[in-house]
């Protein structure tokens, strides 16, 4: 299992990203208040403020999941990843996101359960972004379980410290990929 990050440093890094989004919103709004006559710029700034507000909201939920993972001191246990992913999809839909559980296989992983489903849900939302969708697939090989979260068009998934720390928080190892967010979890042989 991968080593979990230091909570204080993690929160500091993640808050830095959130502050950048809040900063972009404030800049957009205060520029609009200057009564700029450039219509194209106005539209662009309004779109930025709208999109970044939704992203901040989404990321705040993700930070909550991250903190839950980081503060979980319980021992790792084995559970069905398929069940956890189905619950994560439900969580995602409950907040207006779209995620579909595609090709998958029943697999048992070994991880800390607290915050696990919330973290998976946040990862699905971050991959889908504000108005997209995430397709989830699972595969197993040599005792490891690989999960892929991808957009339907196969476009590049987001990086950033929040994604990186959520993965570390659930004990996952990211596998570099151009076709989505791919990560490996410690599996348990049936």
């Amino acid at each position, binding site marked *: 299992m991968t080593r979990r990050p230091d909570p204080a440093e993690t929160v500091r*890094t993640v*808050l*830095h*990203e*959130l*502050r*950048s*989004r*809040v*900063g*972009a919103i*404030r*800049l*957009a709004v*205060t*520029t609009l208040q*200057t009564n*700029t006559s*450039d219509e194209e*710029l106005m539209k*662009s*700034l309004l779109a*930025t403020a709208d999109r*970044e507000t939704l992203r901040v909201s989404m990321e705040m939920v993700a930070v909550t999941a991250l903190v839950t993972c980081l503060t979980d001191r319980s021992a790792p246990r084995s559970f069905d990843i398929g069940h956890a992913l189905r619950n994560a999809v439900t969580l995602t839909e409950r907040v207006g996101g779209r995620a579909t559980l595609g090709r998958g296989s029943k697999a048992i992983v070994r991880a800390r359960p607290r915050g696990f489903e919330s973290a998976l849900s946040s990862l699905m939302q971050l991959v889908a972004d504000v108005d997209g969708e995430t397709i989830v697939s699972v595969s197993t090989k040599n005792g490891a379980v690989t999960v892929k979260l991808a957009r339907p068009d196969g476009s590049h998934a987001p990086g950033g410290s929040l994604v990186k720390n959520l993965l570390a928080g659930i004990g996952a190892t990211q596998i570099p990929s151009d076709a989505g967010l791919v990560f490996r979890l410690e599996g348990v042989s049936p």
Partner: protein
Amino acid sequence: MTIGVLLVDDHTVFAETLAAALKTNADIAILGVANTSTDGLEKATALKPDVALLDVMLPDYDGIELARRVRTASPETKVVMLTGETDPALFAKAMAAGACGYLIKESSLGDVTDAVRRAYAGQVVVPDKAVSRLTQAQAPPKGVGSDLTDRELEVLGLLAQGKDAKTIAKSLGITWHTARSYLKTVLMKLDAHSQLEAVAVATRLGIIGRPK
């Protein structure tokens, strides 16, 4: 007169929004935008901007080191940190690295525009709201700054209000040279490397109140 500005920030949306917002000012031109320190230094070296707005947390090496390198590569460039980091220690490090200003990312367009213009004019730039977040009240000093005279404290107070040597001289009815001499003494007694650092140190140590 147009002020040439370089932006260095790894958060693409923030950098793009800032560039678009600053462009609404006729006297400000965006010379370049970089997302890493390496690219930022290359652009600063090539473009010699009047003002560089630098984030602190950057992917390759941090913005404080970048500030130092930019000041070496392009001494005329005024460096203003624009960051989400509110750690007072980073603030002091930035000042020691040659930055002349420190803005927090939640600043309004007006704050940023004002900072660019004031930095270009050679002034120290820390908006009031940022000072209160970047400085922390501590016990009064036993050594540093305790030997400041009343006149030096007056100079320090005016400096904290964003006044430059010329304005301080006018306010106190003294010559520019005398004002400069007081400023040098204040910096020396506070063990500060810049006027901005002097204000930060004095505020943090409770020698002066937080600027209004």
